[in-house]
């Protein structure tokens, strides 16, 4: 067994152990506080834990399937996220072709370029080519009402749901000396740090949360949850240095950046939800809401993590 595989098995056993612990706590809480299923918070907690099992299972399968598996998983995530996003924005009949092009051209091409490892064109395909071509497609229909608003929203949807989200599998294209063949562990590192930060903020907030941090944006987020969650997720990230090309200190700094980007990304996405008058982005994941509700922090941290790693560690 290669060290990559054995490290992956160790990680999976660790995550499995944590989920097993969470499921037992959830079971005890449910027995004690909500035997008839009437306590909403406990039922939601258990639905979330169950969904976590499913998500970890899916990611594990994608990792086993290798590069193509990871790319397909994230291409699907982009598709589902884009579908949630476009559902909520202002579109008019005249945007039909631009939106169809976003789904059926921009998204597949973006992921194809990653598969083909064409980093140079991948990095500008959506920010430049889609950015310029989509308003051209839209303008040909001659409908000027809210034009700037409409094209901006579609572009934003593409940037967030496709371009930024695809920076997670883009980690596979980095060439880091001494780290060959282990890139998939960088994805594991990023996902574990971001998601544990979300979960730990939730746990710290539920246990000690007093002071609301952004009452207008996200009434459930608290200062205590933020500080406790970010600090503990950073420590967790630092302790995972052995799966990364980083030293423990570097891994800690990276984790801090990841968690901060994740937190503020969550705030941005929640501001959009508030503006659109919805609580969740959708209903894809039981207990969590839509896919974007789970992906928001990943989307904001992945590109920054990717570029920091690329700039300082990668040859490409």
């Amino acid at each position, binding site marked *: 067994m290669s060290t990559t595989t054995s490290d992956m098995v160790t990680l999976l056993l660790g995550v499995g152990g944590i989920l097993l612990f969470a499921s037992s706590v959830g079971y005890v809480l449910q027995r004690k506080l909500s035997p008839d299923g009437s306590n909403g918070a406990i039922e939601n907690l258990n639905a979330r834990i169950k969904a976590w099992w499913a998500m970890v299972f899916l990611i594990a399968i994608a990792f086993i399937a290798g590069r193509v598996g990871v790319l397909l998983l994230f291409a699907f995530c982009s598709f589902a996220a884009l579908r949630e996003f476009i*559902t909520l924005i*202002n579109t008019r009949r005249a945007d039909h072709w631009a939106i169809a092009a976003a789904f*059926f051209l921009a998204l597949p091409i973006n992921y194809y370029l990653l598969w083909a490892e064409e980093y140079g064109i991948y990095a500008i395909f959506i920010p430049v080519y889609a950015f310029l071509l989509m308003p051209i497609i839209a303008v040909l229909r001659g409908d000027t009402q809210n034009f700037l608003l409409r094209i901006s929203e579609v572009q934003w949807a593409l940037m967030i749901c496709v371009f930024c989200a695809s920076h997670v599998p883009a980690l596979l294209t980095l060439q880091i000396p001494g780290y060959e063949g282990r890139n998939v562990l960088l994805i594991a590192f990023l996902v574990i740090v971001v998601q544990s930060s979300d979960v730990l903020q939730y746990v710290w907030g539920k246990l000690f949360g007093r002071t609301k941090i952004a009452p207008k944006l996200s009434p459930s987020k608290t200062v205590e949850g933020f500080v406790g969650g970010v600090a503990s997720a950073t420590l967790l990230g630092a302790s995972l240095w052995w799966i990364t090309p980083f030293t423990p200190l570097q891994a800690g700094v990276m984790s801090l950046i990841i968690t901060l980007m994740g937190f503020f990304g969550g705030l941005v996405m929640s501001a959009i939800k508030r503006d659109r008058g919805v609580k969740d982005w959708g209903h894809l994941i039981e207990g969590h809401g839509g896919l974007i509700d789970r992906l928001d922090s990943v989307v904001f941290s992945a590109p920054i993590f990717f570029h920091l790693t690329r700039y300082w560690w990668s040859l490409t």
Partner: protein
Amino acid sequence: MIRDFLARLASVAIMMFARALTAARALWHETGLPPRQSVYFANHSSHGDFILIWAVLPPWLRQRARPVASAEYWLKSKLTSFIGGDVFNAVLIERDPAARTSDPVEQMAAALDEGASLIVFPEGTRNQTEARLLPFKSGLYHLARKRPDVALVPVWINNLNRVMPKGEFVPIPLICTINFGEPLKVEPDESKEDFIARAQGALLSLAPTQTDNDA
């Protein structure tokens, strides 16, 4: 045999495609699932409307649900008559009162007598206007009078008109919800106008508020 098998295959494929495109999700009324035999009446803005209702029904309700559709449209070609007839087992009615040879209400009542549920669009045609709902035709009332024991279930289909607006042939993926309301029946002494108004009101009450969806 082969035709049956193909029809089965086509129905699964159509359902998977509809779900992949729209992540269709049913919201049931608080009183639970609709009765085993129902007449589902819905707003009509797209050719895919009945497919979505059909796709979100649980299998035991879906099996017996037959869309009521225009013979002129579905008998146009071999393919459409295969989809309308073999796949969805539609009750095909002739829309033009002057030219028709059979009474649509009789046809629908006969299908109910065989145990089927029906999916109907009382607006009579696809709504291409800015109005949320076109005035109902009277067919629903006459059917309700003829078979007063069958539950009439209002169903609001949200967003499908954005998936494939009229004149487009590439659908775009958007999340659609299908909102099932409380079953209603015609009152013994209710006039046609009162019943139609009540049925329209019941359907409209399931639509999301205008501000949610002002696009």
